[in-house]
């Protein structure tokens, strides 16, 4: 047997490790098909991050809205935050799910970068995220006025992404 062959596992592993290293900070940037599209947003009863009051699924109803999953540990969320502020200023309803995060850090974050959300849920242990099939933060769900999930975007929202999502969002009841 040639010693050369014995290097094959090492080479394979090096390629794999290189791939890991290059993808370590990448987040999925495009729309993932979600089995939840067309389904009602899951029932929940959780406390609001800002006020500590109980919010439920009923508080999402009435007007089309975005539900944004974010966390302070996620650098991409920081990148998308100013764009969310912009959308909120245009009058678009955005609800936040603060995902697997620490409340203190989250409140501080909203105080320093501005708060585009109507309200935020603290999903500290990721329970709601589990039900939503959240893949990583940030993610954004498009909801119609009856609380049905109409679309899902994985990765940050920005002007380019929004130019494709906006027509879809504006057409929702």
């Amino acid at each position: 047997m040639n010693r050369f062959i014995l290097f094959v596992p090492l080479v394979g592993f090096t390629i794999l490790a290189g791939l890991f290293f290059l993808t370590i900070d990448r987040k999925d940037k495009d729309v993932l098909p979600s089995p939840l599209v067309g389904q009602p947003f899951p029932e929940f009863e959780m406390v609001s991050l800002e006020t500590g009051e109980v919010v439920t699924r009923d508080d999402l109803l009435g007007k089309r809205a975005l539900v944004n999953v974010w966390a302070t540990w996620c650098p991409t969320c920081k990148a998308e935050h100013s764009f969310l502020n912009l959308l909120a200023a245009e009058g678009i309803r955005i609800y936040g799910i603060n995902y697997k995060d620490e409340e203190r850090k989250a409140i501080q974050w909203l105080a320093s970068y501005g708060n585009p959300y109507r309200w935020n849920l603290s999903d500290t242990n990721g329970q709601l995220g589990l039900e939503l099939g959240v893949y990583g933060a940030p993610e954004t769900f498009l909801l119609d006025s009856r609380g049905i999930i109409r679309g899902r975007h994985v990765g940050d929202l920005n002007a380019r992404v929004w130019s494709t999502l906006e027509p879809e969002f504006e057409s929702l009841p």
Partner: protein
Amino acid sequence: MLTEAYGALSSIPEFGQLALIMAFVVAVFQTVVPLWGVHRNNTLMMAYARPLAAAQALFLLVSLVVLAWCFVVDDFSVTYVATNSNSALPTPFKISAVWGAHEGSLLLWVALLGCWGVAVALFSRSLPLDMLARVLGIMGLISTGFILFTLETSNPFARTLPSVPSEGGDLNPLLQDFGLIVHPPTLYMGYVGLSVVFSFAVAALLGGRLDAAWARWSRPWTTAAWIFLTIGIALGSWWAYYELGWGGWWFWDPVENASLMPWLVATALMHSLAVTEKRGLFKSWTVLLAIIAFSLSLLGTFLVRSGVLTSVHAFASDPERGVFVLALLGICVGGSLLIYALKAPTVASVGRYDWLSRESFLLMNNLLLLVAAFAILLGTLYPLLIDFLGMGKISVGASWFNVMFVPVSVMLTLIIGIGAVSRWKTDQTKRLGRELGLAAVAAPVLGIATPLIVSGELNGQVILGIGIASWLILASLLDVWKKCRGQLQRIPSLSLSFNGMILAHIGVAVTVVGVTMVANYSQEESVRMSVGDSHTLGDYRFEFVEAGQIRGPNYHADAIRFRVYDNDRLIGELMPEKRRYTARGSVMTEAAIDVTLFRDLYVSMGEPLENGAWGMRIQVKPFMRWVWLGTIFMALGGLMAMFDKRYRQPRRSAPSPSAIAEATA
């Protein structure tokens, strides 16, 4: 409760941290001193390996106990306790909350690594000192890396000072369950146990003694780790089945895949070690498997925490941790593969074997297990790769894994049947035909008969599944019959490792039966029901008797009492619950399950509807228990093989001719 004023904070958590730092220092010594001793041929320094391993384990256990203590006394000044516990949490769950999230489970991981180190120090009296020093030195190196990782990026003893919360955030309700008390430690024991085999392999490579003695030392450790992995995976599947509330038992989630891959490779390794020990063949292959098995268990444990792969029930990922984990993986896996490339023997092994022999069947089994493991690895990493190459997004669903995994399992099951009865070196088709002819005829008959009896119509999957399972069971039983020469009372006097092998192989068949039946004959319906309603599914009638409320220690629950009738005979009551945990306001579905050996009746609550009605999910799952029963057989079989007397005999540095002659397993 922490009742003292801020100034009177308990300092116990600091002792936990101090113990962890001490463990780190000891681990550094455990790496340096024995390995330097080997280098300088200094017996005294080599002899330090044992006491250092014991000291390291002691400090790690102190650290773990301190963390558990912080949970038990509700010390919410510790951030990790405050995020994962609550004063209303029952005490057993407070203890299991120690490994309920990233930091604590990492501490558990390193503590178990320390325990395996002590086990090696204790049960290796007959190991040559330089080998022992190398093994424990390498284990010390692994410890050093992972304790440093814990201290640097994931310290479980960090405090929330100066403002100490008065109440904790509670443990994730999904994890408040018996299954989660036992599942992670068992699985981690398996993962970490593979580090022993890994260390033996690297030590043998470094020392240039990749021989039958090395294989003999490695075998019981491999089997021990494999037993823990087997039970750990089965517990995880069982937990998901009753706790997630939808009756599935395997989801091909990255975290599950992460546990299955090392299991498959460890299975291959156990068999390959047998060939290396008995026949001195496949040395380079076996040592590579030992490295791959531990690498995959590292990859599995840590990839989901690094931000490279995300799973819905993963830990919050953090790029800083990711880089650290990658560096550790690079050193462990890359380093060992480099040593392998430089040191593995290139000379062809001396022994010869025919294509029709036990060696070839074991080799085929090895290749199939590796194919299965790499198919899963590929499926887990494929989305990442495709995305990286800019070829778009894909999700690899359960169907892909099933397409890959099922054919391989079928072939494996067929080969186990032949391989286990075949002879070393060379065998004859005629002899194998005589041994297995009966099984080969009876298996297809049983396979075809089963679907006809159960449902009255033929079903290809059932014929195949039951056919191969019958083949394996019959082949194993015929083998026993032959070995005990038709006298059943002689079975106990056959070697433990032979009986263990038979039991484990029958376990595989039992699991195959369970999977086949559940996949093909489960019945499931979602129905709207209110008080007094009945719903019939298969032979069973489910009667909605009453709905009410239950108050638990840290939750309120809606509950429904069902009576279940088998045709008209009352067979029991089932009470599914929907719990709302007060601390987080999160809702959990508690399924109610009526269990017998041949079917599970599974009732879980969906959404409340108007007028007191509920959406109910009712399932009848035949042979569900067999899926896990098979794994229990496998684990027991492994246990028997591990306690075979030849591992307890005073060991020789090379197997004597009699050891080769006694070859059975």
